[in-house]
């Protein structure tokens, strides 16, 4: 009967030996699997929801279709498919034999591996083996002859000239894997061939490969003895190779065979589009009272099981390496190497926890590697095994942000966003400024309902080139009768990139703010935006923080308006253009077709770049990179993209549909030398041309819908307003009267206290000597403040005075009659000199390993934010003193108040800034020292103090000279900037700082006494003698300046 003998001429010893070896191999493999599962089980929970069953079927599909392996590398895909199927079928074949030989026959006496089944089995197994060998041979040829760059492990993007030892181990891993497969396949056929040559069964041709080989052997004159010898030896070679392979599965490259099942099943459908919130605090050690909240990943122990599984699944195929814009532009990041380094570190740490002592960030992965990522998602999008690199990068960035380890410009930008709600450092009030040049008013959704809320975003609001685009879009909407309104200054940075930078706390507060602003707005049905970044976060991330209306990108809106005829093309453009797919629109959210539809509708000929749609090449701005300068001298991603576009030839325009793209490419077009080749245009600008927007009178003909809604709204508003006013008048009067009755005495006191400083009350006037009175010295004294609870001292106490300082908006106005500038003209931040003082205080306590830093501020409620910033950086307690009389207090008054606080705190060192950035008196500190009778030094750059009764101080003199001196302690020092770099406080730290106590102390009318001066007049300095302004753009200015320089040098 058709079958074959399994253990031909194998002695019983051999038999036993084989089973021992087989058992051992299985055990090794099994141990590996258990070990990995154990590691995953011990790792952190996945921060994102995992739906393994839903994912399972997609994984099955992806594995069997080999869809992901074919993408962007078809030949590798074509080779991998027969390897996979060959492997699976041979595995199945071996399993069938095992089932019969070891189970069904010995236990049930049932056999099936014979007859027709055997013939079919032989044929299929032969073809599978052939496929495997062909695939493997092609892979060998590709790896060692074709040598695609993405398979090289030498980090040329980092300037490596030698392959590092670990990478050489990876090469071995690849080599061994291929040779092992080849060996198993070839010895299998050899075995078959010699068996067929010896036995020559009539069904031989059912094993076609082996049969042909057998015929060749026979033809070459192989005799029975030779065949038998080969058959005997080769059996062991084949068997042991196969068993060794099995043993090696969990430990070598073959690991991906198993890991991929997990990593593909647990793919996060929203990966990177929606980043996870930080993991909740883990229970703390027994001695620790407060559990440490998890900020990000500072050690491999913080990676979730899903991350570890991802790491294990990597096959080093290099697709991510090839797709990454950072790698392509020579930045010190390759997503593949990042994953491989993490994997090696994870494995090492798992074997010997902590033994290698390497810090995750710094030793294993460098900070600059993490900062190089543009969060464009190209790596994870192309990864055939479903690795999600960028979320891990962001987790590690969170740790960097927490440690304040980031570039200055990024820090400044984050501060600006926190303080002003935009990354430009502009006044929030000018956010809607771009609308003023429109010929029609734009609705304020806070005041009247609109169908669409336009969330504008920072770049489209503040960047001049993008403001043009915003206006064009507004006009298009207007022309189409699309009803929209803005949130104006209630809108803040959406936070997409803030989150990807890793400043999670700031992102949360931005999301909460914007959601609140939307919630407080009048009725709207949907959100529109031109900014794909805002689009992504509002669509995918805001829902984790609250309810949010559906959002659409303007490309979809324009496509719809054109298709429905609300916008009609009158001049098909007939231009040859290419389109850049924004990462956040295309790859993140799948909108590849809408902008293309628009281009088609307006009659453009679209020529796609080689890298388009899901393979679109990032402009380099994502992930907060737009706030971090790119290194000079290297080609930036945007420049790389410009070359790609130029290679298409004869382009009229490079079309963008993302404000950041506009900024990046407008710049790169010039720097890459393609200025003459094509222009960068926004999609909306092309639409405007095609519909001849200029010819439409937007002022006179408000769209019909508009007019109707407007009329209705006014009518409703009128009626409501009347009724509201009535109701309000009633209730307010009622409430005020009853309040007055309750609080009559306090009210009068408060009214008295809020008298301005410039108008002292009669009784105070009597107290001060009139100018004509006798000369006398009347030392200023500490203000008597109401006592507040001051904890007992434990170690030295450092009191630091911090002030929030106002910076004037460009469009500020002085109320000269009142001698004041209204609050709305200011943006507030922490005084930089006070920040330096605080840093010195923190450094002192850190060096002493003892002591308490108390931050004190004089300011109204909203100045508490400043205090909290100081607490976030490490101050232990805060004190805030306020009453209205202190609003425009002079330095003497401020010093008196601070002295009142110091009297209760009895500090060992008092630190203030050398001056404040707003009024620049440079006086409060020294006046305070005198009132307290403390030794003091001004403009100090460094303090050395061991807690004893003297300290060494370095103070700055004019001209860069410094003086060192000793001062008795306690003392007061006013601190100059530049001594040490102030640390960064993340929004999370600021929020956490809410738990730290702040004592609020009543200023008790101190501002009414003993001021040093009275403001007579407040005015803008005369404009005479000001510079002659050179008008025009940078080009024109450069020319004019060049002329002045040449003229000065006598060159003309």
């Amino acid at each position, binding site marked *: 009967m058709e079958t074959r003998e399994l253990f031909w001429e194998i002695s019983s010893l051999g038999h036993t030996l084989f089973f021992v070896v087989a058992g051992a191999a299985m055990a090794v493999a099994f141990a590996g699997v258990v070990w990995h599962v154990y590691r995953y089980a011990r790792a952190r929970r996945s921060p994102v929801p995992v739906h393994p069953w839903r994912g399972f079927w997609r994984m099955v599909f992806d594995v069997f279709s080999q869809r992901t392996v074919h993408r962007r590398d078809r030949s590798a895909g074509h080779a991998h498919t027969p390897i996979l199927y060959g492997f699976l079928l041979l595995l199945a074949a071996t399993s069938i034999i095992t089932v019969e030989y070891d189970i069904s026959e010995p236990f049930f006496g049932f056999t099936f591996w014979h007859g027709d089944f055997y013939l079919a089995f032989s044929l299929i197994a032969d073809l599978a083996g052939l496929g495997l060998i062909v695939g493997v041979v092609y892979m060998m040829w590709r790896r060692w002859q074709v040598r695609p760059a993405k398979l090289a492990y030498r980090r040329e993007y980092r300037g490596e000239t030698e392959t590092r030892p670990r990478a050489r181990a990876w090469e071995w891993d690849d080599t061994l894997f291929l040779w092992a497969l080849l060996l198993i396949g070839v010895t299998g056929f050899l075995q078959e061939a010699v068996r067929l040559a010896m036995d020559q069964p009539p069904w031989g041709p059912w094993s076609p490969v082996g049969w042909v080989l057998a015929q060749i052997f026979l033809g070459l004159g192989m005799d029975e003895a030779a065949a038998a010898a080969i058959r005997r030896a080769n059996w062991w070679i084949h068997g042991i190779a196969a068993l060794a392979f099995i043993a090696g599965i969990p430990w070598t490259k073959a690991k991906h065979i198993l890991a991929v099942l997990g990593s593909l099943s647990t793919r996060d459908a929203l990966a990177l589009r929606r980043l996870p919130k930080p993991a909740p605090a883990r229970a703390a050690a027994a001695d620790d009272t407060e559990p440490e909240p998890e900020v990000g990943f500072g050690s491999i122990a913080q990676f979730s099981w899903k991350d570890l599984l991802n790491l294990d699944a990597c096959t080093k195929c290099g697709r991510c390496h090839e797709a990454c814009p950072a790698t392509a532009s020579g930045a010190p990041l390759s997503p593949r190497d990042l994953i491989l380094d993490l994997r090696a570190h994870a494995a090492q740490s798992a074997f010997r926890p902590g033994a290698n002592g390497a810090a995750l960030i710094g030793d294993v992965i460098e900070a600059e590697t993490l900062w190089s990522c543009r969060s464009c998602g190209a790596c994870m999008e192309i990864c055939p095994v479903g690795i999600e690199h960028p979320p891990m990068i962001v987790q590690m960035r969170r740790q960097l942000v927490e440690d304040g380890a980031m*570039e200055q*410009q990024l820090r400044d930008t984050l501060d600006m966003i926190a303080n002003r709600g935009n990354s430009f450092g502009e006044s929030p009030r000018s956010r809607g400024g771009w609308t003023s040049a429109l010929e029609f008013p734009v609705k304020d959704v806070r005041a009247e309902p609109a169908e669409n809320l336009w969330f504008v975003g920072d770049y489209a609001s503040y960047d001049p080139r993008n403001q043009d685009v915003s206006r064009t879009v507004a006009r298009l909407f207007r022309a189409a009768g699309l009803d929209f309104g803005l949130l104006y200054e209630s809108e803040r940075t959406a936070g997409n990139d803030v989150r990807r930078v890793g400043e999670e706390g700031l992102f949360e507060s931005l999301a909460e703010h914007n959601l609140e602003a939307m919630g407080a707005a009048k009725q709207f049905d949907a959100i529109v935006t031109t900014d794909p970044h805002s689009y992504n976060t509002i669509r995918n991330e805001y829902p984790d923080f609250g309810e949010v209306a559906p959002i659409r990108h303007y490309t979809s809106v324009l496509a719809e308006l054109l298709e429905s005829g609300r916008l009609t093309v009158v001049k098909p453009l007939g231009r040859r253009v290419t389109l850049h797919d924004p990462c956040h629109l295309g790859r993140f959210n799948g909108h590849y077709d809408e902008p293309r539809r628009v281009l088609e509708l307006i009659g453009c000929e679209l020529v796609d770049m080689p890298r388009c749609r899901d393979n679109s090449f990032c402009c380099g701005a994502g992930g907060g990179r737009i706030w*971090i300068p*790119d290194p*000079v*001298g290297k080609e930036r991603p945007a420049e790389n993209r410009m070359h790609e576009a130029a290679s298409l030839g004869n382009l009229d325009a490079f079309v963008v549909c993302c404000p950041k793209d506009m900024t990046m490419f407008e710049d790169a077009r010039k*720097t890459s030398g393609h200025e003459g080749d094509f222009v960068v245009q926004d999609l909306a600008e092309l639409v405007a041309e095609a519909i001849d927007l200029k010819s439409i009178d937007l002022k006179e003909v408000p769209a019909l819908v508009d007019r109707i809604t407007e009329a209705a709204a006014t009518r409703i508003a009128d009626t409501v307003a009347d009724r509201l006013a009535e109701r309000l008048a009633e209730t307010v009067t009622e409430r005020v009267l009853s309040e007055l009755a309750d609080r009559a005495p306090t009210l009068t006191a408060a009214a008295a206290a809020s008298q301005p400083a410039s108008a002292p009350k009669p009784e105070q*006037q009597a107290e001060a000597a009139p100018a004509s009175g*006798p*000369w006398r*010295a*009347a*030392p*200023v004294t500490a203000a008597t403040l109401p006592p507040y609870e001051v904890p007992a001292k434990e170690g030295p106490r450092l009191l630091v005075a911090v002030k929030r300082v106002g910076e*004037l908006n460009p469009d500020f106005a*002085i109320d000269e009659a009142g001698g004041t500038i209204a609050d709305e003209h200011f943006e507030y931040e922490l005084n930089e000199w006070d920040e330096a003082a605080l840093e010195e205080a923190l450094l002192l306590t850190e060096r002493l390993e003892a002591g308490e830093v108390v931050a004190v501020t004089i300011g109204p409620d909203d100045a508490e934010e400043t205090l909290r910033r100081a607490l976030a950086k490490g101050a232990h307690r805060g004190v805030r003193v306020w009453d209205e009389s202190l609003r425009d207090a002079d*330095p*003497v008054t401020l010093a008196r108040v601070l002295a009142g606080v110091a009297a209760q705190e009895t500090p060992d060192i008092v630190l203030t800034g050398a001056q404040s*950035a707003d*009024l620049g*008196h*440079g*006086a*409060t500190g*020294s*006046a305070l020292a*005198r009132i307290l*009778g403390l*030794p*003091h030094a001004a403009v100090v750059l460094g303090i050395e103090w061991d807690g004893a009764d003297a300290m060494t101080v370095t103070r700055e*003199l*004019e*001209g*860069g*000279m*410094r*003086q060192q*001196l*000793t001062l008795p302690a306690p003392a007061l020092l006013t601190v100059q900037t*530049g001594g040490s*770099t102030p640390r960064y406080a993340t929004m999370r730290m600021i929020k956490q700082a809410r738990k730290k106590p702040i004592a609020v102390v009543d200023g008790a009318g101190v501002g009414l006494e003993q001021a*040093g001066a*009275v*403001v*007579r*007049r407040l005015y803008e*300095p005369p404009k005479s003698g*000001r*510079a002659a*302004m*050179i*008008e025009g753009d*940078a080009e024109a*200015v450069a020319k*004019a*300046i*060049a002329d*002045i*320089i040449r003229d*000065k040098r006598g060159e003309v």
Partner: protein
Amino acid sequence: MAGILVVAEHFDGVLRDVTLEMIGAAAEIKDGLGGPLAVLVIGQDVDALASAANLEGVDEIVTVAQADAHFDPALYEEAVCAVAEARQVRLVLIGHTAAGMAFGPAVAARLGSGFASDVFGLTLDGAEPIATRSGYGGKVSMDLAFPDKPVIVLTLRGATFKAPEEAGSASIASFTVELDAVPGAGTHIDYLPAPPADVDIGKAEFILSVGRALGEDTNLPQFSALAERLGATLGCSRPVADSGWLPKAHQVGQSGTIAGNCSLYLALGISGAVQHLAGMKHVDTIIAVNTDPEAPIFNVAHHGACVDIFELAEALEREFN
């Protein structure tokens, strides 16, 4: 109860310019205010300093002997208060300098006087002094009055008032103040000179200065290359030096170097804080580039432009290529 007391500031045996300028400012209002103009010199070797202070308009020079030559705010405060009290002066003028900032406000607090700092305009309303100072980086000016204050202490901005040109004929008298056991005095250890450097802002004729607008040290090469191309010396404002992006020697200004020989100054992304202006506002030709049209640097510049400095740098680079 009359007269003006100018507190002389000196270093290394030389009167600082601000002292002479204060004398000039005081001489201007002396008659309207009434009383003599006295200069107080506190120091170890006061005679040479006293004669240097003997300028037109000075009526008296008062010297107070100090055991060593090093400035100490506690000693100055003690001496100034003693002299002011003994002479019942109406107005005390102190330089708004690193030293003046240390003892000026303390004197004011001790006397309970009227007080204003960084004053750049001093006038009279009748017989009442009015001090002008500014705020918000020079965008707002304010006139201050000191009603009901028998004595007023002002710290005056340097390089602002005009020093008298002629020598004076003041009497010189010494005044004894016990300075040996003033509580809170420090002990001098040493002076640390500015670190040696490869640039000399003081000698440079053409300076291209960058300010905080630079944003990041990685942006620096663009500007150093531009400076080289233009044949200019690269200068900077304080934040750039504070951040360590350029050595301190490049810093222009009060606590940096005065651009003493400069005839062309190109200020890129510098707001024009008073301490920066102190180092460059005398320059013949100043060109300022700043995106903020209200930036106070435009008050001293001769040519100005509101464009982005990075774009400008690129354009200039092309222009000179």
